[in-house]
C-alpha cells in the first residue's frame, strides 16, 4: 500500500440498464433476469403514452403502447412491474417527467401495499420538465404548472420519502440535442436554479440545505472523453458555488455534485454499429476515471441503439462493460487521477468561464423557464453546426466520414436485423386489460379521487402528491390523472426553435437554391414542404434539422412540431397546399403510424409524395415503400443536402418537370 493507492478499493457505482417494454409482467421478468446478472439498481423505461399522460386507448397512443418502454396505466400495473422485488432494498430510477408526480404516487402506493413505508423507499424520478421542452418532447402541461408539479414532488419527498432523489436535472438530453459542453453545463445549472427557486417558495427556508442536497443530475458523456471529464469537474465546481452563494448551504456534503449517467447516444452510428462498443467504453471512462467526480449510477446504451430497440442480450453486453471496468480493471483502487493536472485544471477553468457567460445570458432573459425559446434556438444551431462539421469532414466519425468501407456484419444478419421487435399484440392486450381494470374498480371512489385532484390542481398552495397517492389507491388511470390536470392547467406546445435558426450558406447550398428556384418557377409557386412528427415521439432533432436545411435551400417549410395525429397531418397538407411531405419517427412505431398517415392523406385527397426519416430497419423500409412512401432515410443518411436534392427531384418528377440539368 502506498499513498498512490486507496487503503480499500472504492465500492462500485450503481449499475443499471434502462429497460422495460411491452407490459408490466414481461418487464418484471426482464428486471429479475437483469438483477440476477449482477445489475444493482433498476432503471425503468416507460412507454410514450405513460410519459405524456395518455391511456393506452387514447388516439395518440396508437402504435406506441409498450414500444419504447413499459405501459403503466394504474396501480395494478405498477404492482405487477415490481412483483417480487423488495422495495426497501431496491434503488429504482424512473425516467419520468411530465407525469413524475403520478408515477411516484403509484410507487408509494405499491410500497404501502407490500408493507414498505415511504420512508424506506429509495430511487429517483427524473422529473425535469425544461429539457422536455428543449429536447425530449414528453411534456404534458405548460411551464408554470409543470414547475409547480416538480416543486411539489421535491417538497413532498424531502418531508416523507427522504431517501428519494426527487429530480434528476438533465444535461443528458441537451447534449443529445446538440449542446456544446459549455451549453450543457450552463443550461442544466440554470435549470437547477429555476427548480430550486420554485421549491424555495413552497418549503420552509430552513429546509433549503436539505432540498439542495437532494438535487441530483443526469448527465451525458460523449466520445471526447477527456473534455467530457473536465465538463463534470466544472459542473461540480459550479454546483458547489451555487449551493454556498445562492442558497447558503453550509454543509459541504450537501453541496456535493451527485449525478447518474447514460453515455452518449447521439454519437452512436448505424453504419458499422459494432464500433459503438468502443465509443461506449471511452464514454464510460469519462464518468469513472476521476474519483472526485465519479458517477453514482451508470447505465450504458447498447451497441445497436441507432438500429432499433436493443434485445436483452445487447443490454447484457453493456452491463458486462460496466462489470469489467469495475471488477477486472484497477479503476477503483486509486485516489483522484487528475488532481494537480495542469491540463485538467486548464480545461475546467475554460469551461467554467464559458458556462458563466452563458448562464448570464439565460439570467438576462429572466431565467431558464422564460429563456426556453432562447436555449432551444441555441441548441438547434449547435446541432446544425455539428451536422455540418460531420458533412464537411471537420469532425471525424469512423465508419461514416472516414474508413467507411466494411465487411458484412454478422451481428445484424438475423431476420429482424439484430434488434428487438415488440409484439404488436401487446397494444390490444394492454387496452383490454385497461378496460377490465376500469370495469372492476369502485367507480365512485375513482370519480371522487379525480374531483379532489382537480380541486388541488386549482389550489396553487396545496401539494399535488397526497391527492395523487389517494387517486392511485382509488384505481385512477394514468390518462385520467393527466386529463384532470390538463383540465386545470391547459395544454401546451413548446417552441420549435427552428424559426430563429441562423441562415446557413455554402457552395453546395447555392447550387441547391438554384434548383429549388428553377423547380418553384416551373411549379408556379415556391416549393412548399410539410415536416411533421406523427405520434408521441418527441425526439425532434432530425425533423428540426430537415426543416432548417429546407428553408436554407429556399423552400417554404411548414413545421408543426411534435405529437401530431394522422388526421392533423392530412389536414395540414391539404390546407397548406404542400408539394411534398416529410415525416420523422424515432420511436419505432413507424410500422403502425406511417400507414395510418398515408391512409389519412389519401382520404383527404392529398397526392403530394411522402418521404420518411427515422430509426427504420431495412425490412420495414421496404414495407413502407409498398404503402406508397417515396423514400426512407435512416441515421446513416446524414447528408442533408443530398436529402434536399432528392426531395426537389421527387417533386419535379411528380409534376412531370424535367430533372436538373
Amino acid at each position, binding site marked *: 500500500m502506498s499513498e498512490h493507492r486507496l487503503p480499500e478499493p472504492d465500492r462500485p457505482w450503481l449499475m443499471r440498464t434502462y429497460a422495460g417494454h411491452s407490459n408490466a409482467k414481461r418487464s418484471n421478468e426482464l428486471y429479475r433476469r437483469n438483477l440476477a446478472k449482477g445489475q444493482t439498481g433498476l432503471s425503468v423505461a416507460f412507454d410514450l403514452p405513460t410519459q405524456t399522460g395518455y391511456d393506452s386507448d387514447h388516439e395518440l397512443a396508437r402504435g406506441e403502447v409498450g414500444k419504447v418502454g413499459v405501459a403503466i396505466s394504474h396501480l395494478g400495473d405498477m404492482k405487477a412491474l415490481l412483483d417480487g422485488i423488495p422495495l426497501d432494498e431496491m434503488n429504482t430510477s424512473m425516467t419520468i417527467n411530465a407525469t413524475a408526480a403520478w408515477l411516484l404516487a403509484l410507487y408509494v402506493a405499491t410500497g404501502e401495499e407490500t408493507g414498505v413505508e415511504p420512508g424506506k423507499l429509495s430511487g429517483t424520478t427524473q422529473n425535469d420538465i425544461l429539457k422536455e421542452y428543449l429536447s425530449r418532447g414528453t411534456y404534458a402541461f*405548460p411551464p*408554470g404548472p409543470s414547475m409547480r408539479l416538480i416543486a411539489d414532488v421535491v417538497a413532498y419527498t424531502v418531508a416523507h420519502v427522504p431517501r428519494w432523489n426527487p429530480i434528476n436535472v438533465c444535461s443528458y438530453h441537451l447534449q443529445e440535442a446538440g449542446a456544446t459542453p459549455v451549453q450543457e453545463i450552463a443550461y442544466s445549472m440554470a435549470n437547477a436554479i429555476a427548480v430550486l427557486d420554485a421549491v424555495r417558495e413552497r418549503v420552509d427556508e430552513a429546509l433549503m440545505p436539505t432540498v439542495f442536497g437532494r438535487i441530483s443530475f443526469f448527465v451525458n458523456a460523449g466520445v471526447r472523453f477527456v473534455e467530457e471529464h473536465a465538463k463534470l469537474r466544472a459542473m461540480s465546481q459550479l454546483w458547489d458555488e451555487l449551493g454556498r452563494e445562492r442558497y447558503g448551504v453550509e454543509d459541504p456534503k450537501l453541496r456535493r455534485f451527485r449525478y447518474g449517467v447514460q453515455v452518449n447516444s447521439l454519437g452512436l452510428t448505424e453504419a458499422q454499429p459494432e464500433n459503438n462498443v468502443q465509443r461506449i467504453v471511452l464514454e464510460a471512462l469519462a464518468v469513472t476515471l476521476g474519483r472526485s467526480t465519479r458517477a453514482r449510477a451508470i447505465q450504458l446504451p447498447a451497441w445497436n441503439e441507432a438500429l432499433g430497440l436493443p434485445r436483452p442480450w445487447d443490454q447484457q453486453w453493456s452491463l458486462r462493460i460496466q462489470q469489467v471496468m469495475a471488477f477486472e480493471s484497477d479503476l477503483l483502487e486509486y485516489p483522484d487521477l487528475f488532481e494537480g493536472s495542469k491540463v485538467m485544471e486548464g480545461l475546467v477553468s475554460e469551461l467554467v468561464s464559458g458556462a458563466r457567460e452563458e448562464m448570464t445570458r439565460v439570467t438576462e432573459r429572466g431565467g431558464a423557464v422564460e429563456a426556453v*425559446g432562447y436555449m432551444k434556438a441555441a441548441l438547434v444551431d449547435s446541432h446544425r453546426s455539428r451536422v455540418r462539421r460531420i458533412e464537411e469532414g471537420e469532425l471525424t466519425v469512423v465508419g461514416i466520414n472516414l474508413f467507411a468501407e466494411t465487411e458484412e456484419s454478422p451481428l445484424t444478419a438475423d431476420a429482424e436485423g439484430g434488434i428487438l421487435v415488440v409484439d404488436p399484440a401487446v397494444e390490444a392486450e394492454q387496452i383490454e386489460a385497461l378496460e377490465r381494470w376500469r370495469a372492476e374498480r369502485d367507480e365512485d371512489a375513482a370519480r371522487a379521487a379525480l374531483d379532489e385532484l382537480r380541486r388541488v390542481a386549482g389550489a396553487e398552495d396545496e401539494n399535488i402528491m397526497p391527492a395523487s397517492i389517494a387517486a392511485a389507491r382509488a384505481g385512477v388511470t394514468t390518462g385520467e390523472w393527466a386529463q384532470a390536470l390538463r383540465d*386545470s*392547467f*391547459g*395544454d401546451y*406546445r413548446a417552441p*420549435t426553435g*427552428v*424559426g430563429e*435558426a441562423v*441562415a446557413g*450558406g455554402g457552395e453546395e*447550398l447555392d447550387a441547391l*437554391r438554384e434548383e*429549388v*428556384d428553377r423547380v418553384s*418557377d*416551373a*411549379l*408556379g*409557386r*415556391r416549393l412548399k414542404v410539410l415536416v411533421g412528427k406523427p405520434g408521441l415521439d418527441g425526439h425532434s432533432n432530425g425533423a428540426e434539422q430537415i*426543416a*432548417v436545411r*429546407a*428553408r*436554407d*435551400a*429556399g*423552400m*417554404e*417549410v*411548414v*413545421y*408543426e*412540431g411534435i405529437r401530431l*395525429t394522422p*388526421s*392533423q397531418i*392530412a*389536414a*395540414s397538407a*391539404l*390546407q*397548406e*397546399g404542400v408539394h411534398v411531405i416529410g415525416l420523422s419517427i424515432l420511436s419505432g412505431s413507424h410500422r403502425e403510424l406511417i400507414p395510418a398517415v398515408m391512409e389519412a392523406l389519401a*382520404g*383527404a*385527397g*392529398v*397526392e403530394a409524395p411522402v418521404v420518411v426519416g427515422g430509426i427504420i430497419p431495412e425490412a420495414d423500409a421496404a414495407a413502407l415503400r409498398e404503402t406508397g412512401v417515396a423514400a426512407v432515410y435512416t441515421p446513416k443518411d446524414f447528408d442533408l443536402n443530398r436529402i434536399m436534392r432528392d426531395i426537389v427531384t421527387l417533386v419535379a418528377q*411528380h*409534376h*412531370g*418537370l424535367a430533372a436538373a440539368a
Partner: protein
Amino acid sequence: MSEGSSGGDRSGEAASGADRSGEATSGADRSGEAASGAASAGGALSGADLGRRLRERDLPAAPAALNLVEARRPGGPEEVAALLREVSPAALGGEAPAHVVGITGPPGVGKSSLLSQLVAAWREGGRTVAVLAVDPTSRRSGGALLGDRARIAFDPSDRGVFLRSTAAGDTLGGLAASTRAAAQALAAAFDVVVIETVGVGQSETDVADAADTVAVVVQPGSGDVLQFLKAGIMEIPDVLVVTKADLGAIAESAVRDLRSALGALDARGVEVVAVSSISPARGIDELVAALDAHRDAVDVPARRLRARRRHALADFAAEHGERGLRALAGRREADRLLESLDPGLDVPALRAALEERADLPS
C-alpha cells in the same frame, strides 16, 4: 370523409378528385399545379369555378383556390382575375359577408396562443374561420419557416376552420403578394377571415387596407407600441390587445398607459382589451365583442371600396411606374376615374380600367 352526406362535403370530394386530375395532367401541360393545370387543360377547376364554389360557401374549395391565388405563372393572373370576379361585390350582390380581421404584433407577443383561443371562441359561436398566417421570408435563400401552424391549435376534423401559412416573399409591408386576393376569395365563403402578420410600426398600414378591423397585439412592459403611437409612427389600430393579463398589475398598468395615450391622441373610441391565453383563458369573449363592435360601427362597404381603389392604383403604379401615372394625368385624376367606376368591381377589374384609360397593355 365520413360526414360526406352534405352537399358541401361531397363537393369537397369533387375538389380533391379534380385536384388529383390536375396534378396528373400537369405533366402534359407543364403548368404544374391543380387549379390552372386543370383549367388550361379545359378541366372542371378553373378560377371561375373555384370562385363560384367559394361564393356558394363551399369551404373545401379553399385549398385549391389558394394554390391558384398564390401561383405566379404565365396565365395565372387571368385565372386569378376570373376567380376574384366571381367573388366580387358585383357577383355577390354586395360586399362579401366575412368579417376580415387583421391581427398584428411583434414576434413572441403571444399572437398564436391568442388566435387559438379566438378561433375556438368563434367556432363556439357557430362562425366558420379562415386564418392567413404570414411569416417573413429569408432574404438570403428565399426560403421560409412557416411556424404558426404549430402554435395555433384546432381540431383537424373541423371543416369550419381553415389555416394557411404564407411566406411574405420580397414584398414590404408584412403581407404576401397574394394575401389580399386570398382574403378576398375566402371572405366570400367564411364568416371570419383573419390575416395574421408579424411586426409593429410598418405592417399595419398594409393590413389595414386588407382588413375591416385591425387588432394590434402587445405585451405588457414593452414600451415600443406606446412610443410609436405617441410619435405617430404607427397608425392608430381599431382594437388594442394586451396579452399576458395573468401578469396582473403589470398588464393592468399597460392597459392604463395605452388608454391614456389614446385619450391624448383623441382616439378614446379604440378599445383596449387585456387577454390571457394561459388556462383559465381570460378576456377572449370581450375581445370577440370588441372586434364585432368595431365592425358594426365602421362603414365596411366604404372602407373596402376605398381599399380596393387604393390597391388598384398601387398595383397599376407598381406595374407601370411614374410613366403610367403620367399617362393617367396624375394620381388625383386616377382617383377621380376610380370613383366614377362601378363600386362592385374588384381590384383586377379596376386596374384594367386604369390601364385602358392610360392606353397601356395589362
